[in-house]
């Protein structure tokens, strides 16, 4: 299986561990991720807040480049996923918009017809590779590891393409099949605050506090997410939550590909463990590079 891979800006730097673990997990599962040549920013939520047509065009340049490769476009970032998917869908349903976008793209000899699909890496793992096939390739059982599957918002909303918008189960089933104890987490699709962490910090800290609080009460060893922004807010701002709410949370927050990587027997380096702010090595030490 071959896919065109769109890392997105976050995965280049602040979520590098997500990028590295995603590529290595995909390789171990024979899903070949070929990086999209010369991709640009998807536009994210910020561009959409300033100029509509431009944000669609910025996003569509990637779709047009990817369409030339005639493969599904796969990203591991939930925000890129929703933004690129939204552009794809709105072009599909709005002929005038499609015309305007393609007119602008034509100045760079590009055009998007809408013949490819935009997909999240979690979707690829669950529906193309398959949970059973992943479990069959597992080298390490995650038995005894209590994980919170935290999906966040933009993986399943608004489109709900491959899982339920409010009660997704993909990660629950995947981690369960790999032997982990999966917490039935009622806040699994509640918002982490997203960019509000920068523009309205107290509001976002409160949202993160709720997530960490329930995770702690569930005796979780770690929180696992398919979104770089969720990881960042829960991990990097945990200290600040603690000082604002006088709490003592110390819960590692990992990318879902890191957990799958551990189960597949990948090394610390292959999942770039240690880049998180709240260290995860302690809870994972008996699993990483271990035996089944």
């Amino acid at each position: 299986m071959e896919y065109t891979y769109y890392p997105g800006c976050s995965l280049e730097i602040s979520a590098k561990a997500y990028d590295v673990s995603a590529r290595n997990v995909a390789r171990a599962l024979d899903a070949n991720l070929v990086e999209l040549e010369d991709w640009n920013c998807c536009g994210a939520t910020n561009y959409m807040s300033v100029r509509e047509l431009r944000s669609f065009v910025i996003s569509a340049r990637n779709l047009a480049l990817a369409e030339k490769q005639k493969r599904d476009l796969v990203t591991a970032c939930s925000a890129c996923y929703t933004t690129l998917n939204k552009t794809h869908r709105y072009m599909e349903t709005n002929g005038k918009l499609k015309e305007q976008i393609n007119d602008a793209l034509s100045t760079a000899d590009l055009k998007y017809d809408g013949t490819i699909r935009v997909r999240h890496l979690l979707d690829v793992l669950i529906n193309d590779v398959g949970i059973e096939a992943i479990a069959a390739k597992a080298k390490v059982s995650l038995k005894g590891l209590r994980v919170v599957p935290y999906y966040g918002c933009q993986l399943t909303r608004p489109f709900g393409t491959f899982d339920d918008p409010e009660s997704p189960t993909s990660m629950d089933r995947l981690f369960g099949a790999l032997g982990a104890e999966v917490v039935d987490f009622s806040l699994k699709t509640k918002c982490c605050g997203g960019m509000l962490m920068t523009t309205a910090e107290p509001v976002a800290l409160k949202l993160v506090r709720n997530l960490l609080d329930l995770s702690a009460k569930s005796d979780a060893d770690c929180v696992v997410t398919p979104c770089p922004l969720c990881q960042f807010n829960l991990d990097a701002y945990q200290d600040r939550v603690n000082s604002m709410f006088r709490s003592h949370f110390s819960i590692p927050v990992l990318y879902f590909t890191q957990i799958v990587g551990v189960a597949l027997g990948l090394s610390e380096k292959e999942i770039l463990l240690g880049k998180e702010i709240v260290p995860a090595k302690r809870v994972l030490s008996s699993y990483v590079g271990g035996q089944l």
Partner: protein
Amino acid sequence: MAPPTLPASTLAELSDRFLRDIYSIPEGEKIKVCLQCGTCSASCPTSYAMDYTPREIIAAFRAGMLDRVLRSNTVWMCASCYSCTVRCPGGIKLTDIMYELKRLGIEYGLYAKGAKAPVLSKEFVKIVDKYGKNDELLLLGNFYMKTNPFGLARMAPLGLKLFARGRLPLRPSKVKGHEDITRIMKRLESKEAK
């Protein structure tokens, strides 16, 4: 809440623009069916911090008071989680409406005094237009310089931790086909000017 100070003609223009733009998004005309049930406000994780809740936005629009909404903190408290959008029984795309209001607020210069989120979004656009990609360090640096230079000092300890873990960029990475992007943008500009 500040009383409306917009001339009636500008306010009417604003309302017309809003409706025209909303109708142009797929299923945008569903805004007409809003029955004020409040599912959106109840689903919103940040409505507790908004001056007007999502439901009240539509009520305010119908009452010809859209400018009050724009001048409040409301739309900039939206984190784009799409909870309202997937739950609205009328299929109204509230999150898209939030985006539209953010854009109108920026275009008409109507947002709360000292609001930080519009600054962040505008700085983001500048960086993406220039480099083709976002650069998190540059974005936050520019943002804090414009909104709260002392905030940078407060961010320093976290910044150092991130830097030590290789999670901060050293320099912006620029898209190779950047000239393409510039050309594309010029084309859009010429069309928008018409």
